[in-house]
């Protein structure tokens, strides 16, 4: 009896502890923040690992904030998806923080250094707040906290380009969350509650619910950068500091996606028609094609990686279409979950490795990578490993994810998705080999900068885990099914 209670205390701690470190790093901004930041990272990791462990043992955990029961009060809820995403956030967050700590500071970056850490910890708290939210309005506040801290992290990256990217991102984020809020307003008017679970119990297909879901979907798709609403993403992700790019591509776009997934599975599942689900999937297929194509032709390495994110988001929506409108939703759920995890690990590894390559070469251009294979082989290896997962080659996490989605598509007889999945893999292979090919060319000279060893280690570990997660997929998948809104799910 006491053990689940202790476990449930971990839920608020996962949010409060990063907030506390945001305050601490703000009170005493310093030039060498390592010894202040590290304890924060360690406790954050410990809390999230504990939360994941508790969820895997005891099932869905709920923490009733202020002891006011829903729907009057707000609850935090950790199902398998929520606690896995929280753990993933703490792992990738810590990796990116270490990368940042190992970054040599020069005069240009020192100013941003003071303000990076408060924003970083706010950002972590906001992500956890979204993963563990169970209330529609609370999700809105969490999403705004996430959006503003992410915009801040982009803006402090420096230069006019960063300002433009931050402004574009901010406008998209504000419009997206306003559309979401409008949908929430309609749902409150229609059902008189904000708790997701209580609305799910009484949701009926009527005009106001349709309009509310349409607004929520549109707003959250804009925030997830689903094609054709993706234009804000590549510049924002490409212009940022590499660890910020990694965090944003790996996690931020997934926050709004997970919200959409939860609302669709709880409220929308009896309301969304298969043709609407197919429509979302079609946009996803469009994203796979467009993002892959753009990644093939961009000269800038970080723009290439950012467009790869646009494409990989497409897989999530194809998965959602199979989940809502296919006849094998369990397979689709597993594939979707694995895609969330594997892409987060692979893409953060890829952005960090790309940052290392760029620092080594001193240029953002793919064409200038020539000769880098001999100078920074570790970073290039990490880039390649992450690429293996993104392409979906066995035995990576990306492979298992796409394989499960493929099986779900075939079992549902919707093999047009199979075409999108396989075609996307080919495009991915195209742009990954473009980078690798450029790197293995003979260089013109030996004018490479040396990069911190720690950078390589961090990127390599993330890339390796994106492979390993495919090999040991059954364990995480069992946890990810806990509390899943599926008919045959265990809870």
């Amino acid at each position, binding site marked *: 009896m006491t053990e689940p209670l202790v476990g449930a205390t971990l839920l608020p701690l996962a949010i409060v502890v990063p907030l506390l470190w945001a305050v601490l790093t703000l009170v005493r901004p310093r030039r060498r923040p390592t010894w202040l930041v590290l304890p924060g990272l360690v406790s954050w990791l410990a809390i999230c690992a504990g939360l994941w462990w508790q969820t895997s043992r005891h099932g869905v955990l709920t923490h009733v904030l202020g002891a006011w029961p829903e729907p009057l009060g707000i609850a935090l809820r950790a199902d398998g998806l929520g606690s896995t995403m929280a753990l993933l956030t703490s792992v990738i967050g810590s990796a990116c923080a270490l990368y940042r700590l190992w970054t040599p500071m020069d005069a240009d970056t020192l100013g941003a250094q003071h303000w990076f850490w408060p924003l970083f910890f706010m950002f972590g708290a906001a992500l956890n707040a979204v993963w563990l939210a169970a209330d529609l*309005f609370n999700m809105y*506040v969490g999403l*705004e906290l996430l959006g*503003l801290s992410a*915009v*801040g992290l982009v*803006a402090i990256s420096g230069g*006019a380009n960063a*300002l*433009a990217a*931050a*402004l*574009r991102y*901010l*406008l998209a984020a*504000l*419009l997206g969350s*306003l559309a979401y*809020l*409008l949908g*929430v*307003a*309609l749902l*409150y*008017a229609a059902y*008189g509650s904000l708790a997701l679970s209580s609305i799910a119990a009484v949701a009926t297909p009527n005009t106001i619910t349709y309009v509310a879901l349409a607004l929520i979907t549109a707003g959250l798709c804009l925030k997830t950068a689903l094609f054709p609403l993706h234009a804000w993403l590549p510049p924002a992700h490409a212009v940022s500091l590499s660890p910020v790019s990694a965090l944003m591509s790996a996690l931020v776009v997934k926050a709004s996606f997970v919200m959409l997934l939860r609302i669709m599975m709880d409220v929308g599942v009896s309301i969304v028609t298969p043709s609407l689900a197919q429509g979302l999937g079609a946009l996803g297929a469009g994203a796979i094609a467009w993002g892959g194509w753009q990644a093939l032709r961009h000269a800038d390495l970080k723009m290439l990686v950012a467009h790869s994110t646009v494409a990989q988001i497409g897989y999530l929506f194809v998965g959602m279409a199979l989940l809502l409108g296919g006849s094998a939703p369990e397979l689709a759920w597993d594939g979707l979950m694995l895609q969330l995890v594997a892409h987060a690990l692979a893409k953060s590894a890829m952005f960090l490795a790309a940052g290392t390559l760029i620092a080594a070469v001193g240029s953002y251009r793919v064409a200038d990578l020539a000769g880098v294979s001999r100078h920074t082989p570790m970073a290039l290896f990490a880039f390649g490993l992450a690429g293996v997962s993104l392409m979906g080659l066995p035995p990576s996490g990306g492979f298992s994810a796409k394989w499960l989605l493929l099986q779900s598509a075939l079992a549902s007889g919707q093999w047009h998705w199979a075409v999108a999945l396989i075609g996307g893999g080919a495009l991915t292979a195209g742009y990954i080999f473009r980078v690798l090919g450029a790197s293995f060319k003979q260089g013109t000279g030996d004018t490479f900068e040396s990069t911190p060893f720690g950078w390589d280690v961090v990127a390599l570990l993330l890339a390796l885990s994106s492979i390993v997660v495919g090999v040991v997929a059954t364990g995480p998948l069992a946890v990810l099914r806990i509390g899943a809104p599926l008919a045959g799910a265990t809870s």
Partner: protein
Amino acid sequence: MSTELWYALVGVVLVAVSFGAFMAHTHLFRRLLAFNIMGTGCFLILVGLAQHERAPDPIPQALVLTGIVVAVASTALALILLRRWFAATGRTTLPEEDDA
């Protein structure tokens, strides 16, 4: 029609009009004005519609208070970015959206 429903409908018109302006304008400052009016329209719908055929409901009112503070924080952040952008480049639009 109740007073509450009337103001909810006014909110609908405000949201629609300001959304149109948000999409039409390229001037960042004007888009920010449109965002603020859209937010207000959204709040009117939230409170008005919830209270339609119901007693006054403090919960959506409290949500709106939260929403107003979030909106002013976002607006202030956007203005600071905009002023920085303007100081650096002398422009009030995003690079890809020049009409001239």
